[in-house]
């Protein structure tokens, strides 16, 4: 592990031109504090000077009246800024587990070989730099890489070689935006055959009406559909108009009644969250609605589809949310890596301004409503509610202490609601189609009298799932809650089974931080309560599948390496524990493990869980303990023999794939 400061260049004297200064001045007007523009202004400096070096940091510090050390601290927290040593084209290869399950390790080796440099290095001609990247939200199209933050998907070494050659041939004019692919547009799911009937008598908490047309994902994978006109033509902004006829309290009540739970991971009821915002009499001043588009949980690639393919769906939901909580300012915090997404959101917001959705007299109400896209810069922890708030405030993205909770004292000390993209995308449908229609989708709420194990809140409304890993048809699925997890994976209507006819070894049902479910446990219902009863959680709905050849030690190391890298370093147990457990599993992986190490994994997890500000400690503890316990014999064999039966590889590649890799 390298523990030096990244190369940050010299402290050169730099200045912003008058135009750029004007640009920054306009930017500052969009935020209550100039400090909040730190990340955007650093992006501007990156654009102007080619990288974020010490000179540009000093200039930015001066521009925003911050101390240079503060800016240095912020820049080194985020990994997505260009460094002075970077080549013209920065190629970031995703190495996180879902990509690794589809061959990114071999691909990355090939990339390094093709360019003749190590990861982190730059080619002699100064054209290419290759870096390891964390999940790039295209797990279904693995292996993927970003070239200057533009996604290149479904790669193999052949196509990558061609890409490099093409760029070399035409470095100035090459169009980087052409790398996106839509190989598996599985947006539909409904099938009458899957229909079930509610059993008579006792209420089945997992009952779901399976007749379900795609709702959220209906307009995905169609570049034409992203425009305002197309959205309105498809019934867009009708829900908003209906919502605006109601009082804000009624909007909150309907959202409460709808059973809509947060789609970001924790599943907290959305309406209840809104209800926590205190009245203006109690806490005067502005309210803020933040849209969490910082989708970074490994294996999750649903939000990027909303952002790129149907941005108006998010905007409509966000406006409904802003209306409900009385906010005049919406900030969409989007991952720094999602360059195309940010651009498309900008376009959509501009359209919305033109059409009177936003502006000084928004929606004809005579009130101001503004919406701003705020790009992050490569830090997983900024997807955490309060980490996001810190980052938006222009700080290191450290999660904040709770209490105070954001709904009372959030961004800039004002009441703040942070909603996931998909949560907000539910709202237009809820308000357009009505409560009855909405609550008919998914598994019902069960009244408190029935008191099933955990079935009280239910899982209602449409839901998008991301399936990746060792399946025949990875992709985005708009399938209602309640479907059996095994059915989703094995049915030909959905994912088409484990690839290569292999057996299923395990499924991670909700992003890499969730506990794994073994082959025996996957007959659960895919809803908040069903997966919880099976001992895990649907988290961010990122499902990835391990086939029987997967080496769990290797898989665990990959997961832990990610969380070690992404721990913000604030709380002792997580900062030290994540590094410790990663080193420990790495040692097992290199054949130097002992049986005591397995107990240590348990103890470390136990000592870190529940003792930190946010739940990142849980995010590495849960996979560590669940992989280790559920596949303990495999860990023991690895420790005894010093290797796995796959010679330390993550999985045995499919014959067809290895052929193409060789070719």
């Amino acid at each position: 592990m390298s523990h030096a400061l990244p190369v940050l260049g010299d402290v050169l004297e730099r200045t912003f031109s008058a135009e750029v200064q004007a640009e920054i001045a306009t930017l500052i007007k969009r935020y209550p504090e100039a400090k909040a523009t730190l990340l955007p202004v650093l992006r501007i400096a990156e654009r102007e000077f080619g990288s974020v070096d010490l000179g540009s940091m000093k200039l930015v510090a001066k521009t925003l009246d911050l101390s240079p050390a503060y800016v240095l601290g912020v820049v080194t927290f985020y990994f997505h800024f260009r460094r002075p040593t970077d080549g013209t084209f920065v190629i970031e290869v995703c190495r996180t587990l879902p990509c690794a399950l589809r061959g990114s390790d071999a691909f990355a080796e090939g990339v390094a070989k093709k360019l003749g440099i190590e990861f982190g290095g730059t080619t002699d001609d100064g054209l290419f730099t290759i870096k390891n990247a964390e999940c790039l939200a295209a797990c279904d199209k693995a292996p993927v890489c970003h070239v200057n933050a533009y996604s290149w998907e479904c790669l193999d070494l052949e196509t990558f070689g061609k890409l490099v050659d093409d760029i070399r041939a035409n470095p100035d004019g090459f169009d980087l935006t052409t790398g996106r692919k839509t190989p598996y547009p599985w947006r539909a799911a409904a099938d009458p055959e899957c229909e079930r009937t509610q059993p008579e008598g006792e209420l089945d908490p997992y009952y779901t009406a399976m007749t379900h047309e795609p709702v959220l994902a209906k307009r995905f994978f169609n570049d034409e559909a992203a425009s305002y006109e197309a959205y309105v033509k498809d019934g867009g902004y009708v829900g908003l108009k209906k919502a605006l006829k109601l009082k804000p309290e009624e909007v909150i009540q309907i959202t409460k009644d709808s059973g809509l739970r947060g789609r970001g991971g924790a599943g907290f009821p959305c309406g209840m969250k809104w209800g926590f915002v205190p009245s203006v009499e109690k806490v005067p001043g502005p309210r803020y609605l933040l849209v969490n588009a910082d989708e970074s949980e490994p294996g999750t690639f649903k939000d990027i589809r909303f952002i790129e393919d149907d941005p108006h769906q998010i905007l409509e939901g966000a406006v409904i949310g802003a209306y409900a909580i009385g906010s005049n300012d919406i900030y969409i915090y989007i991952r720094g890596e999602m360059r195309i997404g940010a651009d498309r959101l900008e376009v959509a917001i501009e359209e919305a301004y033109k059409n009177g959705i936003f502006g000084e007299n928004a929606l004809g109400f005579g009130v101001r409503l503004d919406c701003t896209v705020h790009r992050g810069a490569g830090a997983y922890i900024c997807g955490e509610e309060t980490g996001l708030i810190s980052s938006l405030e222009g700080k290191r993205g450290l999660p904040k202490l709770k209490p105070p909770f954001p709904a009372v004292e959030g961004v800039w000390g004002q009441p703040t609601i942070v909603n996931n993209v998909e949560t907000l995308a539910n709202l237009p449908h809820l308000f357009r189609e009505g409560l009855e229609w909405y609550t008919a989708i998914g598994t019902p709420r069960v009244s408190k009298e029935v008191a099933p194990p955990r079935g009280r809140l239910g899982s209602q409304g449409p839901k998008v799932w991301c399936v990746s890993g060792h399946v025949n048809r990875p992709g985005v699925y708009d399938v209602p809650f309640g479907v059996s997890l095994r059915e989703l994976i094995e049915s030909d209507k959905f994912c088409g089974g484990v690839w290569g006819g292999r057996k299923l070894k395990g499924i991670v049902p909700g992003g890499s931080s969730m506990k794994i479910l073994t082959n025996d446990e996957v007959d659960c219902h895919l809803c908040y309560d069903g997966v919880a009863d099976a001992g895990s959680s649907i988290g961010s709905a990122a499902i990835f599948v391990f086939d029987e050849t997967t080496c769990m030690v290797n898989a665990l190391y990959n997961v832990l390496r990610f969380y070690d890298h992404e721990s913000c370093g604030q709380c002792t147990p997580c900062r030290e524990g994540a590094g410790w457990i990663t080193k420990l599993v790495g040692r097992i992986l290199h054949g130097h493990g002992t049986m005591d190490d397995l107990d240590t994994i348990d103890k470390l997890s136990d000592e870190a869980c529940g003792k930190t500000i946010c739940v990142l400690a849980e995010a590495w503890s849960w996979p560590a303990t669940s992989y280790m316990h559920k596949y303990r014999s495999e860990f023991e064999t690895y420790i005894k023999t010093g290797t796995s039966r796959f010679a330390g590889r993550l999985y045995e590649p499919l014959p067809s794939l290895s052929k193409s890799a060789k070719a």
Partner: protein
Amino acid sequence: MSETTTERLEVPFTIDGASYTALKGETVLEAALRNGYFIPHYCWHPSLSIAGNCRMCLVHTKPGPPKPQIACNTVVSEGMEVDASSEKTLTAREGILEFLLANHPLDCPICDQAGECDLQQYSFDHGRTTSKFSEIKTQRPRHDLGPRIRFNGNRCILCTRCVRFCDEVTGTGELTVVNRSDSAWIDVFPGVPLDNPLSGCTADLCPVGALLDSDWIHTTRVWLLRGTKSVCSGCATGCNVNVEAFDDSVKRMTPRENQPVNKWWMCDEGRDSHREATTDSRLNVARLDGQPVKHQDALEAALDLFSATPAAKIAYLTTGHATCEELHLLETITDGPGGVNYRPDGGAFETLDGFKLSADKNPNRAGVVAVLGDVDAGERVRKGIESGQIELVVVCDSQPGGANWDEGLVEALKGDVKAIVISLEDTWLAQTKQVAFPGLHAIEKDGTFVNQNGRLQRVRAAVSAPGDTRGELDVLQELGRSAGHFPRVLSAGGVFRRLAAASPDAFGGLTYRGLGAVGLPLAGAADQTPADKCQTYYNAGPVSRETRAQDEQTRVAVHRESPLGYGTVRGNV
């Protein structure tokens, strides 16, 4: 009065079953510390914002969630039951310490913080004897953060006290955390070092050996240091300090908490002020007509001179560094006019939390006003000398570097007028005038100073003076005794009693012993904080090291049994 009582509603709660009361809105940690119940903590400090990152103060609370809460961010509610010592709480604490020590180099034998290190202390109190850690330790850099502060990244526990200090107290923002996860460390922006007037406080705040004062490191083990509760003589702020010495030589000065005076802080200049006592230019021998002589010989000559001159023909000259007792003696034994020299103004600094580093570099200017009333810079003395009215001048110059008298006065003094000089420095007066005695520096003498806000505070001798130095009090009293002013030579406390009797307006009702560690306000002073309001929380000083034994008793060295059974260790209780 009724308003303040309603604001300070008391909330009953319990810690480990024992009943306490908290003030409304107080956190569990604050309430516990205020009640004298110590909950271990690193990142929390009363002067800084709550970071909540060290997780050391985890406690279980009822009502509260099942997982442990950090005491520093949990507000006490009525009837709350805090569990700070059950097995599950202690296990959580052990776990945190094990994490903290995972990548820690455990280099206590060569670490300067050893002996006053909270990591050591808590490991001893709460930690496990073994660690599960068997990996390679993460290496983080070691470098100088500024001219004064040296950083050792491997020892750092990233509590961010130092960063918050620079952001929230000095407002200079030199420090930051760079990188993230366990490869994060504290750093400065290249070319912008940690160089603010209070930079030394970051080392005080550091609970471990990560930030160390490079002025002090590698000199003494802390358990050998003897602390003396005194007052810094660097400026009119009058920061309360611990003058820490070993082998009769001051090794460092660290601040003591005194809210109305210096909060928890002191400036770097003040930290270095003890060096004024060890300069080569010091006068460390008595002189008679410029020639070094034994003290007794010089004293006899001085007594002759003094008794041969009528009191009305004796004037005195002194400086803003003289203690109130010296000023009182000077005024008592002479009847002629007096003059006071002040050091010129220096740099002032005010922190965001209201600590004012004074531009006035004289520790006792307010004392001069209180004791002597209206005195000038020596104009009347000059006129007296020139007119022949004054025949003898008693010069009491404890100003480091020597007083800088007005030109006219210097010319007058160069004449035939006789002088008895008590001087810290070997000045031209000491070398050329009839009799000269070596004076004492503030770290060597007892007495009182009045700070800029009218607070009367005690300076205490921490080390002995070089050579055969008897000091101002002794010489002045001998002179006064020969003239029949006093029956015997008294200690500083005795002189103060006389002073208080002589100037009841300013000093009435004050006793030397009653001044204690934090001083008392003079009548009519701007700062009227009573002594019991000067310190905030039990064991939450400016310096983590203030929690250590050496501050508990001043200058009382005792021998106690070593816990390891290797005989006795010398140290303070």
